[in-house]
Every structure is written in structure tokens, then in C-alpha cells.
């Protein structure tokens, strides 16, 4: 009788160690089923202080900037060399920095007045660019100031180039902030987001100056196709501009 009682107290489920082992086994099963997600999440918290920090990001971005600058300079040199071979129009390197001293970017008149005039070498017909791209052309100069007709002015009509579809068009100012691009063909496949730059065929502007992006397309039953252009350079906020002489 005594022997029976002894045997019954020595069953494995009466031992604490067995249950601990069983618990570990269940945990490992869970780890297996969850494909180690627990460990990965744990590793996330442990390794967090050692992640690549802001400093490393800055170093990489600086390297990227330098890489792009080098590529840009190489492409620019190539572009100048090829243009010389083909005897195409060239953009002058002479630029004059000027501040905007008067701005009429609403109503009927779309013009800005700059603080550099004929005394500083500004000529009528020079082009004015701001951060983003083309703003307009110098229409008149005084000794100390120059007046610029913006590309949003109804007076402005410029030849432009839509690069994706390799087509020339006419950019007409409408007196609002979105000039209209007129393409003299109904079948051109212009799309929203297409990039518009100055045309290589233009007699007023040097080629490849960024202008804007197609914002909306007017699908009317007309022989021409028109699109509204969102300008890259915003004349109503720009305070400093560059005046470039045009050698056309």
C-alpha cells in the first residue's frame, strides 16, 4: 500500500520542472509558427541605438549632390560642344543679379521692375529667370531700372518645346497665373505632367530653359489643342532674379 502511494506522487506532471520545459516548448512552437517575428521585433529594439544616424544620411546626401553636380557639369560641357558642332543657339554665361522692386502680377498688367538698368548693362530683349525657370523678357530699360514683361502677360507669346512628345507649341499669357500652351495639331498626345521648356526653334529665347508643367488639357473640338501650364518660377513670390543676355 505504501509502495503504491510513493509511485503515484512521482508522476511527471507533478513536477514543476516539467511544466517549465513544456512552457518553453510551447514558446518555441509559437516562434516557429510566427517565423521568428518575436525575435525580429526584439532585435529592432536592441539595435535601435546603433542604427545609421542623421550624420550618415547627410554624408550620403552630400556625396549624391556632388555626384549629380559632376554629372551635370559633364553633360553641360557635352551640350556646349555638340551645340558648337551643330552651330545652334547658345545661352550667354553673362548674368546679372537683380532685385524685384515693383511687382504687378495681378489685374491687366503683368510686369515686374528690377533694380538694374542700362547702366548695369541690361538690354531690351534679355531674358529673366528666377528660381525654377523662365519669368519673362526685358521690355524696357531706364538708367537704373528695367521692366520685365512676364510670361503670364497677355502681351507675351513665346515658342516652347514639349520634350516628351518632341513638339513645338506657342505659350500665350492670359493675364492669370496659368499661361496657355497652344499646339497646332489635334492629334498630339500631350499629357498632364509633361514638361515644357523654351524651344530650340525660338528666335526670342535660348533653348532648354525650364518653363513649367502641363496642368490641364482643354479637349475642345477645335483644330488646335490647348493646355494650361503651371509655371515652375512663381513671379508673385520671387524677390531676386537673374538677367541673361541672349546671343541669338
Amino acid at each position: 500500500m505504501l509502495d503504491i502511494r510513493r509511485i503515484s506522487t512521482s508522476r511527471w506532471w507533478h513536477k514543476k520542472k516539467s511544466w517549465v520545459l513544456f512552457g518553453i516548448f510551447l514558446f518555441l512552437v509559437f516562434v516557429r509558427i510566427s517565423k521568428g517575428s518575436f525575435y525580429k521585433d526584439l532585435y529592432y529594439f536592441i539595435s535601435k541605438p546603433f542604427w545609421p544616424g542623421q550624420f550618415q544620411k547627410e554624408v550620403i546626401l552630400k556625396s549624391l549632390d556632388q555626384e549629380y553636380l559632376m554629372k551635370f557639369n559633364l553633360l553641360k560641357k557635352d551640350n556646349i560642344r555638340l551645340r558648337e558642332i551643330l552651330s545652334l543657339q547658345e545661352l550667354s554665361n553673362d548674368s546679372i543679379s537683380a532685385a524685384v522692386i515693383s511687382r504687378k502680377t495681378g489685374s491687366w498688367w503683368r510686369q515686374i521692375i528690377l533694380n538694374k538698368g542700362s547702366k548695369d548693362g541690361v538690354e531690351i530683349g534679355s531674358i529673366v529667370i528666377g528660381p525654377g525657370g523662365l519669368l519673362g523678357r526685358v521690355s524696357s530699360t531706364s538708367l537704373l531700372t528695367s521692366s520685365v514683361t512676364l510670361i503670364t502677360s497677355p502681351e507675351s507669346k513665346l515658342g516652347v518645346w514639349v520634350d516628351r512628345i518632341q513638339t513645338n507649341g506657342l505659350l500665350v499669357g492670359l493675364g492669370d497665373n496659368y499661361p496657355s500652351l497652344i499646339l497646332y495639331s489635334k492629334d498630339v498626345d500631350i499629357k498632364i505632367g509633361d514638361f515644357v521648356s523654351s524651344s530650340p526653334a525660338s528666335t526670342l529665347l535660348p533653348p532648354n530653359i525650364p518653363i513649367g508643367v502641363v496642368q490641364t488639357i482643354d479637349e475642345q473640338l477645335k483644330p488646335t489643342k490647348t493646355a494650361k501650364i503651371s509655371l515652375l518660377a512663381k513671379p508673385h513670390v520671387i524677390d531676386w532674379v537673374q538677367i541673361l543676355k541672349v546671343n541669338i
Partner: protein
Amino acid sequence: MNKFFERKLSLISFIFIPIIFLWHPNWLGLLGVQPYWPLFWLLPWAMINGPFNGLIFGLFLGIILDSLTLDNNFTQIPGLILCGILFGKIKFNSNVLVRHFRYGLICSFGSFLCGNLYFLQILIKNFSDSTFLLFIPSFKNILAEVFLTGFYAPFICSQLFRMFKFSKRKLQ
């Protein structure tokens, strides 16, 4: 010196019209459009000095403002001359409130007239152009200008009116 300024107050303020026209303070504008500044000066001037003076100074204002804008094909002179004559024929009203309200209405009408005359010139010039797309921006310009001119006129015109009357009294 002070007497000189008091007497010539109206003419001195005339010089500031092109300056404010060039200044183009955006914070006073609506949709990028400004009130039509010359009317604020022309209304009290023409009301005090009559239609002939209104015509002459409307012409002067038009010449100055045209020289400041780059649109060589269009002019503001006809609108300002017409406004000068019309404003000169307006009689004073004794009620202060009505007078202020009238300034707003008259300037709004003047701005509407000038805006439409300017738009008419653009329309005539581009009559044969099949790609003429200027209608909606032009209506926006006219409406915003009419609203703003009418809104500011009671404040500015009444002050200028008082100043001009004061300097005229000093002259007599």
C-alpha cells in the same frame, strides 16, 4: 513751407498715385488684383473742381499710368477721361452716411467703366485671333477691381475730399 504744402495738397497727393500704382501692395488686393487707385483721387478732385478739370486730370493720370505699364497697344486714357467728366457732374449730398456710400458706388461704377473700356480695346485688337482665351481672366479682373475699388472708396475718398476742400479753402 507748411503753407505751400497746405495749398498744394491735392497736387502733391497726385504724385503718389503712380507710386502706389507701382507699389502694388498685395495685402490690399484680392485674387492678385488691386483696386483702381487713380479713381480714388479723381473722384474728389473732379467733384470739387468740375467736369473740365476732371477731364484734364483724367487725361494726365492716363498718360502717366500708361507710361508705367508695358502694354503699348492699350490705353487707360479713355476710361479716366470719361470718369473725370462724369465725376465732375456729381452733386454733393448733405447726409454723411449716404455720401460715404455714394463714394463706394460711384468708384465701383468708374472702375467698371474703365475695366470694360480696357477690355474692349483688347477684344478689338484680338478680334481676328481664333486662339483668343482672355475672356474668363478679364471678367475676373473687372469684377475683383470693381469690388475692391468700391470697398476702399468710402475710406480713401472721404479723407481726400476733406483734404482737398481744406486746401481750397486756404487758397480762397
